[in-house]
């Protein structure tokens, strides 16, 4: 299939999902509330005099985003289960890869929205300077990696028993590596280190993204073909 077609179909799938979300807004409001609550838990679950904000901020940022993203990912294929919508989607004369890409784009926009809400809140609550351009790049690179794997896995887990529990169990081992790199890079950037010091972590994140996005596009048909 020609690539403009693939992308056009992918965008059609993504815009469908985003439209559904835009009409109801249940998921985004729930996840945003969840983010605020997790940040509050962090605030009350630690001794504020013992650990400084700038030391803790990378962990807070990544733990919050991880859990919020998992909640969001669960929903990607959940909405297709109602009225066998997934069968309809699979019957459409489009490449399987474009269905995956569409879901990936929708999930990325969804998770990015959560991060856009979460980041200023972290800056506000924990009094750290987070809106620096390299940090946004770190967050974007890490997010692409784990959302790519998560979208693939959620296509499988929704059709198993205990879907909500199984997705984090399968996904977290794949999230830990990019999270670790991202958290290290975030720590350096929040401490005011220059971009050149985090270049290595950024490269690792980029390689991880490329490998797993390609892999997921190739493997996705196996998760939906009967």
């Amino acid at each position, binding site marked *: 299939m020609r690539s403009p077609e693939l992308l056009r179909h992918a965008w059609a799938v993504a815009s469908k999902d985003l439209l559904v979300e835009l009409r109801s807004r249940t998921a985004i409001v729930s996840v945003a509330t969840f983010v605020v609550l997790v940040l509050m838990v962090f605030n009350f679950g630690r001794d504020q005099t013992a650990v400084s904000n700038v030391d803790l901020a990378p962990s807070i940022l990544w733990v919050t985003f991880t859990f919020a993203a998992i909640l969001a990912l669960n929903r990607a294929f959940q909405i297709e289960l109602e009225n066998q919508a997934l069968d309809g989607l699979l019957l459409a004369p489009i490449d399987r890869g474009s269905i995956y890409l569409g879901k990936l784009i929708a999930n990325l926009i969804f998770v990015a929205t959560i991060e856009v809400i979460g980041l200023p809140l972290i800056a506000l609550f924990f009094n750290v300077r987070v809106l620096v351009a390299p940090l946004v790049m770190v967050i974007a690179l890490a997010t692409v990696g784990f959302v790519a794997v998560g979208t693939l896995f959620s296509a499988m887990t929704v059709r198993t028993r205990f879907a909500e529990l199984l997705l984090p169990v*399968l996904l977290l081992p794949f999230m830990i590596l990019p999270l670790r790199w991202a958290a290290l890079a975030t720590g350096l950037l929040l401490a005011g280190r220059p971009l050149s010091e985090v270049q*290595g972590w950024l490269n690792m994140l980029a390689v991880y993204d490329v490998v797993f996005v390609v892999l997921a596009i190739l493997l996705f048909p*196996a*998760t939906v073909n009967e």
Partner: protein
Amino acid sequence: MTHLRVGRWITAVALLLLAGVYVRALAYTPVEASQGFAQKIFYLHVPAAIWAETAMIFVGLASIVYLFTKDPRLDRFAASSAEVGTVFCAIVLTTGPIWGKPIWGTWWSWDARLTFTLFLFLLYVGYLLLRSAVPDPGARARFAAVLGICGMCEVPFIHLSVYMFPTLHPMPIVLQPGRPKLPGSMLTTWLFSLGVFTLLYVGFVVQRYAVSYLREQLEVTEQ
């Protein structure tokens, strides 16, 4: 049924030879100068670690071929290899802290290789959980294959990370560029142990393969 019997025989021989590894390691191999007696665990720890990781690579390779050929034997092999890999990971995760306590002074350190063996273990557990959560055999095999391939692709990243993190772990001394930095008699014991673990892997996998075949037959007759 013959598979099961062959597997049992191989395992029996391997376990007997494992006793031989203990004897050779304890009585006929020199005590390491700086670590003393604790270093003996190396002869179990490292071969188990090698097979824990290799088993994941086999799971991935079998999964790739499975997705092309849909041959149920490959799925059965992948499942068996994953189960055996889980056991070997458990061996690494128990012998590691036992070795770490006298040498590092702590049972557990969030050291790169220990941590990543832990999450290789979790990968295996996730793989087995996924298999148990899908009732339909066809879907189970496909889902497991997808996860197996992803798991295999993650192993190189884990390896790369090992070299990038500050660590208490010794750097590889056998599998490294150039000659192994290990005295001859220790190397012989270690290679002997690696051979025994290879045999154990084969024995376990053959048995598990036979059991999953029997289980599938049972499922078919139940339906």
